[in-house]
């Protein structure tokens, strides 16, 4: 079992685990009890002190709250794993994770070192430091502090870090004199090279730098920490010997050099990059001067590995992120640094305030440890129960994480309307305590909009695109979306001040008639319950009262959002049905096309699987068809399960929960659920009844009546016609459709992909996403050119140049061939399957991108597929 991202990167000493008794309240009360005080507590008045929300203790001084209570099963699986970045208190029934509880860090050991501080933790240094010098009593390394080259000293164990003042300007005076004297001139250490290595004979690798004497008045002597007989091991974290000491010292930049504000993580490679930061700074300045454009990236070879470094310049600060090219292709890295900058700006207002405030350092450590984990070990982060879903997540992240959009789940109109109503009700803020009449005072916040996620899919949003994407990128970064994909959330409450660019960018229009954003402050409230997560953007100032200080989460708002989520609980099963029934558009599995022998190929056109798979969507309507399908399917892909699911009597919602609870693959649960449906048609009505009952508790009972039946017949019919490819067979393997104006994209759900298990198919999906990434990089180039063209309209000076480029590229396709990995039959050549990966960029009428993957047997016209896919795709 994987830890959730929030706890993965965390560290905590195990002895603190037994937990804080204070948090053991209401462990036995169930959900209904817990929300019973909803709306009854108000931060504005202290009358209601008898029930406090359980998260109240976790609110920090700056008003921020990150409170996560996992569902019980989740918690069990987590218990054996101790480490957490955050302060964790375990009680029997809940885990409270508080972000940023670093102040009481008696036992807190930072893995990530801060470079604006002096090194404190010796355990962080690579082990070889110790090994190499086992025989020495005193080991010394000199650490120069970046900003002013003056700092303190820390001694521990058998080696010590000494910070000495080094001014390379001295060089200009003395440089010409002699070789191998920088050590004396700059540091004040005298080392007689010829002495010691005559015996040791280790010429090749350079000789150890034993301090033979100290220059009177030199920095080393002034420090008082360096003694004769010490050995100089490293300068600025670069290992030194007599061979390279001069070169290393000569590279020490002058005091005018910029300061490193933040550095993460501590690793050999990262130290190396830090030591050559001069390259990045110089390139940044020089190339901007020469070309008039900002440097975006550079590539270097470090220990035989290629590393891409992305640049992000803001005011006079430069953010650099370096990652191995093997793991992260350049186009992905560029998207990633953009996302990092965007998220940090959303959270802190600017990169300046994110990096320049000392108290942010532990938060940034957490932020970047999550970042690196996402970049380098995506499979670990996506801790869905089923390996297939995890694989799908990991292989699609390369493309999907960089898209300027949120993963959208299309829902039948009726459900959508219901969700819309629920959100609108919340946003109207017209309920008792929130209405201004109630207390006869201004309300605290205006709700600007909200968006609702279900199992990590966006299902409803009333937020402007920019806000939506800001929030989604934040959620993605903190791993909240996969968190809700399984039922992992008992209760989640997040509150923090945010800086949405959409509202804070000064309007370009000077016209006073135009709407102006109030000079308000903005707060993000995220509440999660089971599979649902509702993100609400609040505005203080403007219509609402002004925010003073660092307000914490207001209970009324939290409770109101919670109530909304509870209201939506009844719709669960409909959404789950949509998720599992995979209506639009139908997919095929690559492995089905890999039938080497002839007869099977002939069969292809009449294959029951192929012709019926599109019919999966019929599941809810015609039982006969369904039974045949599943008969085929279980024969083909899995052994019939010996024991019927016990949840058969209660299919809709319970089945969905089964998905979450089952430690096995999602498909199993799905199939079970379906089998039970299929075996007993009467259950459907039972479920219907149940649904209706639940609905009765909803505040808007108006859309109730015809909801379910209409949906199954009408909608599914539409879905049935939704075959994207032409020709008699469905040849579509995968797709991603990005609607940039609304900031959403659609792509097959985990459930859909899980149904297509095979050996080739997962590889195809991986290759598809990687190929799309490079296709998208070409499209992004086109968009840049288009933007430039729009800016320079009328000025045709650039036209002579553009003939050497392929832009504007609007369609790009690659044909791949693949064959099974393990082919044992010697007599026959392995069967080969060919498929296209095609990307299409639409600039008009609105910006859309489509990526599809289909079998080679039919020629497809991307524009037609796009029309089918994008049709009706609206928030």
């Amino acid at each position, binding site marked *: 079992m994987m830890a959730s991202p929030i706890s993965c990167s965390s560290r905590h000493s195990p002895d603190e685990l037994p937990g804080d008794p204070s948090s053991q309240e209401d462990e036995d009360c169930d959900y209904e009890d817990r929300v019973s005080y909803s709306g009854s507590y108000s931060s504005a008045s202290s009358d209601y002190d008898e029930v406090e929300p359980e998260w109240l203790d976790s609110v920090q001084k700056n008003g921020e709250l990150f409170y996560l209570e996992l569902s019980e099963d989740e918690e069990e699986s987590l218990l054996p794993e101790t480490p957490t970045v955050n302060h964790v208190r375990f009680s029997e029934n809940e885990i409270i994770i508080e972000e940023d509880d670093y102040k009481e860090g008696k036992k807190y050991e930072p893995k990530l070192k801060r470079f604006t501080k002096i090194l404190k933790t010796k355990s962080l240094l690579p082990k070889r430091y110790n090994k190499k010098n086992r025989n020495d009593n005193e080991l010394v390394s000199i650490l120069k502090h970046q900003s002013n080259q003056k700092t303190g000293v820390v001694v521990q164990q058998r080696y010590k870090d000494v910070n000495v003042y080094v001014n390379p300007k001295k060089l200009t005076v003395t440089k010409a004199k002699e070789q191998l004297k920088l050590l004396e001139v700059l540091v004040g250490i005298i080392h007689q090279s010829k002495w010691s290595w005559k015996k040791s004979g280790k010429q090749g690798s350079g000789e150890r730098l034993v301090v033979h004497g100290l220059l009177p008045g030199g920095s080393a002597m002034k420090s008082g920490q360096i003694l004769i007989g010490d050995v100089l091991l490293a300068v600025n974290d670069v290992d030194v010997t007599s061979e390279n000491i001069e070169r290393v010292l000569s590279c020490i930049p002058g005091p005018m050099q910029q300061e490193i504000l933040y550095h993460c993580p501590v690793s050999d490679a990262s130290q190396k990059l830090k030591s*050559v930061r001069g390259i990045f700074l110089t390139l940044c300045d020089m190339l901007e001067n020469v*070309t008039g454009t900002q440097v*975006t990236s550079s590539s270097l070879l470090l220990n035989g590995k290629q590393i891409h470094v992305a640049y992000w310049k803001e005011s006079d600060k430069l953010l650099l992120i370096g990652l191995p090219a093997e793991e992260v292709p350049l186009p992905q890295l560029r998207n990633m640094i953009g996302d990092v900058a965007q998220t940090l700006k959303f959270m802190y207002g600017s990169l300046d305030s994110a990096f320049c405030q000392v108290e942010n350092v532990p938060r940034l450590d957490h932020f970047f440890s999550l970042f690196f984990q996402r970049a380098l070990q995506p499979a670990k982060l996506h801790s869905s129960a089923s390996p297939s879903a995890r694989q799908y997540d990991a292989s699609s992240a390369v493309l999907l994480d960089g898209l300027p959009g949120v993963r959208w789940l299309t829902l039948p109109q009726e459900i959508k309307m219901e969700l819309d109503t629920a959100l609108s009700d919340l946003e109207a803020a017209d309920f008792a305590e929130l209405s201004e009449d109630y207390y006869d005072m201004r309300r605290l916040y205006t709700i600007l909009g909200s968006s609702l996620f279900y199992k990590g899919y966006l299902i409803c949003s009333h937020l402007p695109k920019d806000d939506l994407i800001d929030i989604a990128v934040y959620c993605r970064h903190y791993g909240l979306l996969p968190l809700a994909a399984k039922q992992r959330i008992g209760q989640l409450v997040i509150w923090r001040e945010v800086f949405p660019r959409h509202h804070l960018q000064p309007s370009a229009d000077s016209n006073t008639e135009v709407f102006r954003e109030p000079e308000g402050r903005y707060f993000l409230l995220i509440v999660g319950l089971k599979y649902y997560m509702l993100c609400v953007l609040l505005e203080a100032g403007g219509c609402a009262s002004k925010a003073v200080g660092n307000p914490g989460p207001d209970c009324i708002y939290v409770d109101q959002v919670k109530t909304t989520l509870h209201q939506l609980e009844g719709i669960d099963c409909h959404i789950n049905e949509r998720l599992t029934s995979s209506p639009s558009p139908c997919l095929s599995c690559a492995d089905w096309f890999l039938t080497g022998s002839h007869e099977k190929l002939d069969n292809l056109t009449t294959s029951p699987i192929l012709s019926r798979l599109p019919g999966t969507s019929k599941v809810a309507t015609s039982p006969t068809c369904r039974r045949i399908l599943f008969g085929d399917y279980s024969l083909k892909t899995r052994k019939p399960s010996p024991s019927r699911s016990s949840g058969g009597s209660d299919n809709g919602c319970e089945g969905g929960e089964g998905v979450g609870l089952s430690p096995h693959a999602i498909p199993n649960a799905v199939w079970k659920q379906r089998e039970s449906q299929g075996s007993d048609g009467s259950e459907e009505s039972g479920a219907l009844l149940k649904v209706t009952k639940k609905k009765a508790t909803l505040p808007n009972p108006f859309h109730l009546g015809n909801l379910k039946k209409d949906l199954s017949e009408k909608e599914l019919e539409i879905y049935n016609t939704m075959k994207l490819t032409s020709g008699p067979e469905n040849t579509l393997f995968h797709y991603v459709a990005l609607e940039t104006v609304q900031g959403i994209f659609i792509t097959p759900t985990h459930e859909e992909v899980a149904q297509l298990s095979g050996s080739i198919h997962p590889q195809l999906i991986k*290759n598809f996403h990687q190929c799309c990434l490079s296709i998208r990089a070409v499209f992004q180039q086109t968009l840049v050119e288009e933007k430039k063209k729009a800016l320079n309209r009328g000025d045709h000076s650039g036209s*002579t140049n553009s003939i050497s480029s392929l832009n504007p590229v609007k369609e790009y396709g690659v044909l791949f061939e693949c064959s099974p990995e393990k082919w044992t039959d010697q007599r026959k050549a392995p069967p080969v399957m060919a498929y296209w990966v095609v990307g299409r960029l639409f600039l008009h009428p609105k910006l859309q991108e489509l990526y599809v993957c289909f079998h080679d047997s039919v020629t497809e016209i991307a524009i037609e597929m796009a029309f089918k896919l994008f049709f009706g795709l609206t928030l």
Partner: protein
Amino acid sequence: MGEEGTKGTVHLLCLAASSGVPLFCRSSRGGAPARQQLPFSVIGSLNGVHMFGQNLEVQLRSARTEDTTVVWKSFHDSITLIVLSSEEGTSELRLERLLQMVFGAMVLLVGLEELTNIRNVERLKKELREALSGFAEAAGTAFGSLVVSGRVVAATESWWRLGTPEAVLLPWLVGSLPPQAARDYPVYLPHGSPTVPHRLLTLTLLPGLELCLLCGPRPPLSQLDPQLLDRWWQPVLDPLRACVPLGPRALPAGFPLHMDILGLLLLHLELKRCLFTVEPSADQEPSPEHRRRLLRAFYTLVTASHFPPEPGSPEEKVEDAAQRSQVPRACYLVSGPEEPGTGWRLVALQSGPRRLLLLSAQSPTHALRGLATHTLHALTPLL
């Protein structure tokens, strides 16, 4: 500098790696040699960052701004070449090959010995300047492209066995020298014989048609007297004459090329030969130069991101196992405005050792692959 003056410029810098002394700098703009040069301080910094990294065992390879790409490359720890290009559609792959070829050209003309053991920088500078003055300028536009300005019509087996750099560079060299009836030109072979010079003998058989011989100290040029030539070449004069007009078209007259094809490039990866033309339907848009650039940009795009690199090419690619089991076979690209029937279509097809790239204006997208397959089939007897 700074203001829009850098658009479409390419700067090529050559420095002595140890001392950082610039050996030569060349600039071009829009494909033509340009006077405008980088300021000395910029050259110094460009070299400085690379050297600084090398001292710390970090090898700086490339950097990109929004519109410019810079590539550094060191050869034999002695020569550093830097190219800075803001031509649109520039790719790293192309610049790396350019540097490879530039260094090849330097070896070809001066010899490797001279380049790795720089005793007298001033002398080397002078030599390089003299040797390269005509060559680099003339070849400037061809650098990095696949185009051989003088095409090899026929050659002996051993000529085809020449390594990549010299096989590409020798025809360039011949094309760049001032026209002469006969030449005796000392060359080093960057791949085959970088330290011992050979002699390149050229004889103009017909206007535009030259015979090239690569040989050791013997025979002297005088032995190739006109009578010898007559005896050997007189009988084939007619076929030779027929060759001359073929030059730019590259395909025999009457070759059934589809009307839609505006340009093609056929590579035979094992034989290391290519067939290239942008002449078909020459009366149509775009201009041959434009077509050439489109094909070139497409070639670098597909080579850098999809197709495996040609055997023997220096750049290694980062690929993981999953991708290798998914082999790219074909690739197409549609470029141009939204309106149907406008813009260019480019298609690439890999089949065995052959790789075909086509430029077309009219063909519908779904017909591209068929067009490429048929064309490749028709071309197979030729290469």
